[in-house]
């Protein structure tokens, strides 16, 4: 009986191939999307360290649930949704001190001009309801309809918030110039 067991054909190699395919698919997704995800996280939570934490946790959850992602083209919005959920969970656990906007400008903008520094500062001061759709549009490349889906808003509300975001930022920059 034991000899029969030893002669039985193992199917582990085909399981390993599936794992390899999954790994390749996931690695590609990380390489293509990590930068946009990090930047979105940074502007969402206002902290480089917490953005790093959020992104790592997001990719970890994405790895575990990768089989549920049926269309690769939906990967970015799927990751953003996971990240937003993680941010909400972390924000509820931590005191606001951990998620308040930090001024990393001395490091982040060390090599950039003052105009960009001023604009970053203005974006940081923008209300989150206006900043988030703007980041999703410009950094994420999402359309108004896609942003509405991610944020669970209607398209008109998204349009209004995008308008107000640019309007406010344009005014701040214009006032700084005059």
């Amino acid at each position, binding site marked *: 009986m034991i000899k029969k067991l030893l002669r039985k054909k193992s199917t582990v190699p085909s399981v390993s191939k599936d794992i390899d395919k999954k790994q390749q698919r996931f690695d590609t997704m990380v390489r293509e999307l990590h930068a946009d995800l990090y930047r979105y996280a940074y502007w969402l939570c206002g902290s480089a360290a917490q953005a790093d934490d959020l992104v790592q946790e997001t990719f*970890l959850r994405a790895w575990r649930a990768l089989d549920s992602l049926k269309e690769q083209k939906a990967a970015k919005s799927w990751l953003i949704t996971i990240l937003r959920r993680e941010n909400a969970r972390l924000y509820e656990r931590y005191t606001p001190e951990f998620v308040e906007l930090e001024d990393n400008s001395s490091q982040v903008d060390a090599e950039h001009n003052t105009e960009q520094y001023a604009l970053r500062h203005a974006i940081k001061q923008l209300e989150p309801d206006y900043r988030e759709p703007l980041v999703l549009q410009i950094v994420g490349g999402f359309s108004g309809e896609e942003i509405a889906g991610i944020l669970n808003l209607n398209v008109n509300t998204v349009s209004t918030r995008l308008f107000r975001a640019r309007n406010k930022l344009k005014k701040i920059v214009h006032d700084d110039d005059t």
Partner: protein
Amino acid sequence: MDDLEFRRQCYTDPYSDDAAFIEKCHNSKEAADLAAEMQAFDKQLEAALNVPVPEQYTDKILSGIHSENITVLAPKKRYHPALALAASIVLGFFIFFQFTVSHYELDDIKQEVFAHAGHEAMHVSHEAGQPLKIAGVQRVSYEKINQAFGLFNAKLNTDIGDVYYVNNCVIAGKKGVHLVIAGKTGMITVLYIPHVDIEDKDILSNSLLAGHIFPAKKGTMAIVGEDTEQLEAVKTRLMDSISWSA
């Protein structure tokens, strides 16, 4: 499209592919100028929003995920009654290794320790005979440090040095505590990994950093830095200071 609607569209999405928007740009110089102005502004916004991404970030993310992977066992089959004993022995080993760290997993954790060390946004410089210069960050309060340790029922009871960074980072797949402490000639990274137990201390070493990883009363500690002279002092202060409640 009237002027008001056009202006609104420019501010909502200056790269709109709406037919009426594009037609307006073609038919009106003022409209085309406004669209061009808002597109130029969007370029500035894009540059401002594209903050630098941490270095070697892909590798760091993937190393954290790879340490999550477990050994693939043979898939479930239609068990012959005679295989039940063999299966239970395999299951027993699997359960055993879930609660200890194999040599392979310890190497992954060591890689993660190095990945965490030195990614904080601070400028550090040192000249011989001079105090360490640190720019870009402020010292962190012990209240904040103990909030981070508090998640794991731990706290620091005495001063361990000047701490410039604290965060509940994901380490080896779950949250831990990441501190950065000023040494005399460089910064020292401390990682508390509460969900990992190692059997014995081990050395951490790469071309830039050195340190140790060792068991704590609950979980594992890793200390690594450029200032190797201070590592032992930091370790002693840390382990004398930290305590765990229930």
